[in-house]
């Protein structure tokens, strides 16, 4: 006990701050709903093997480019084709007799993976390029920002489509395409934040103490620019998944037979009048996922904004 008390005493201020942030967050209803949705989806993804009735098998294949790839395969049961929702199949079945509930549950894993990978990669690129542009300025800034402008001048989905089409149909390529579309936003955002924070007195004070540039950027500037970046990341987790689903829908994303929400809607589109459940449940999954992250992001903006805090 003595050790814990010691720790509590040493970190009194930290604990107080964390408690205050949490209490602010708890009082915002919408962000709590968002957080609830996200926790729900994450739990489903974590326990997918226990929840689902059917499970995919993974096969290693040699693709046309001569590389081994792992592909997802679902067993086909033509006898169970397009069954409506029932106790046996909660969300019905699709035109290959797959259980839609199982596919949505496994699809949650894929969506979270796409969202996290794309957003984190884009943020890392954005932090590096934005920090260089914002802190050092001059020609380097000009160069980086003009390249960013070129990327931003092309509509995001069109650019992602172009890259996805050029790279070939695969869910990995969708992620690359989305990273290419998303990094300029982060570079812009982080550069702007750094330009603002760079002028703060405490940065000048750090410089007057002989702090090296790298330490000024990582210790004094970046932690103070993080709030809006974090909000943007949360919001984008939903948007990235929406775009990935969009690409899959138009046939530039996941390979047929994969449990990907956008792809499932695309396949079910043909049967929309005979089997409403085929498009409805994947659509609902996408809506809840995107809504959850948007609500959470919105709530975080209020909580993390120092001007709204006190």
């Amino acid at each position, binding site marked *: 006990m003595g050790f814990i008390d010691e720790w509590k005493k*040493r*970190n*009194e*201020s*930290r604990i107080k*701050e964390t408690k205050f942030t949490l209490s602010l967050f708890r009082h915002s209803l919408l962000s709590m709903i968002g957080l609830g949705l996200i926790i729900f989806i994450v739990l489903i993804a974590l326990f997918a093997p226990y929840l689902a009735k059917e499970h995919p098998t993974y096969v290693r294949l040699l693709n046309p480019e001569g590389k081994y790839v792992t592909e997802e395969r679902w067993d086909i049961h033509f006898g169970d084709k397009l069954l409506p929702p029932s106790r046996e199949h909660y969300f019905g079945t699709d035109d290959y007799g797959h259980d839609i509930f199982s596919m949505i549950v496994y699809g949650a894993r894929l969506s979270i993976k796409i969202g996290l990978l794309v957003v984190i990669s884009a943020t890392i690129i954005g932090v590096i390029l934005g920090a260089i542009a914002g802190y050092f*300025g001059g020609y380097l800034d000009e160069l980086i920002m003009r390249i960013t402008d070129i990327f931003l001048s092309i509509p995001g989905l069109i650019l992602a489509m172009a890259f996805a089409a050029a790279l070939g149909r695969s869910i990995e390529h969708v992620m690359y395409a989305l990273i290419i579309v998303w990094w300029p936003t982060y570079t812009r955002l982080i550069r702007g934040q750094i330009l603002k924070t760079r002028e*703060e*007195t*405490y940065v*000048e*004070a*750090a*410089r*007057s*103490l*002989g*702090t*090296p540039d790298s*330490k000024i950027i990582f*210790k*004094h500037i970046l*932690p*103070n620019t993080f709030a809006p970046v974090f909000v943007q990341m949360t919001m984008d987790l939903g948007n990235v998944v929406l775009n990935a689903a969009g690409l899959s829908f138009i046939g530039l994303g996941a390979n047929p037979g994969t449990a990907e929400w956008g792809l499932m809607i695309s396949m079910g589109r043909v049967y929309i009048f005979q089997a409403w459940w085929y498009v409805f449940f994947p659509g609902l999954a996408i809506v809840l996922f995107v809504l959850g992250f948007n609500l959470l992001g919105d709530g975080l903006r209020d909580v993390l904004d*120092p001007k709204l805090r006190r």
Partner: protein
Amino acid sequence: MEDLLKVRGLKTYFYTYEGVVKALEGINLDIYKGESLGLVGETGCGKSVTALSIMRLIQWPPGKIIGGEIHFNGKDLLKISEEEMRKIRGAEISMIFQEPMSSLNPVFTIGSQIMEAITLHQNVNKKEAEEKAIEMLNLVRMPDPEKVMNQYPHELSGGMQQRAMIAMALSCRPSLLIADEPTTALDVTVQAQILDVVQRVNKELGSSMLLITHDLGVVAQICDRVAVMYAGYIVEIGTVKQIFKNPQHPYTKGLMNAIPKIHVKTKRLEVIRGVVPNLITPPSGCRFHPRCDHAMDVCKKKVPPVTKVEEEHYVACFLHEGAK
């Protein structure tokens, strides 16, 4: 007395959209070992730019030191590399700023910030750095230093924040401390405490100080010598006694007259007429001549040379030229 810092002909310009702001036009300044020099003048006369130029912290763009020499312990600070300069900042020359609240990083505790300043220049482990940080906080008479170590800047009062800032600046025992209006943002009772701390700690560590202020009372209280700045020039420099008892430059005289005196009954406070000149298009010759009651023709044409009035007392004014 021995020189610690010797500034010669320092010129700093800012290249802005409206034009070139000639912020410093050849500053000459000496700081002796162990003394405190006050630098006074109106807002915008170049006091802070002088300090930042000495630290080589003028940001380009828009500012640039375009000429002069800054000799510190025999080294010309304008000739050494950025890396060498970085090692001098904090270790040999330190600075404290006007706004204590914004000079501390809001996301780290006071302790981690002071410890960072210590580990930057001294080869010590975390435990030793912590001990040193607490020792520094004790030195600036911070109440309950162990607790403050783990507190965030916003939990402290302005006076305590400034104490923490002083502890941080002095943690590597620099030989020169530049204090840029350290008490302007604090209320009067706290001002006195902070000034007392700065003065005492400085004496204990044996370091020199450049105190920038527009408060003549502060200067009289803690400085040994005073330099008076006007629009990018140092117009008069001397010991506190010489400047206060025997001001020579019309501008210094104006400043002295503008101090309200308790025992003299006056209806209105005397002011220096006119406004501080625009430094993009400064007045020709002596920059003070449009506001000066004693302006002569020569004042509009030539920059007045520095003339020695008495020992340690120099003035840049045509009224005194030839009064050697």
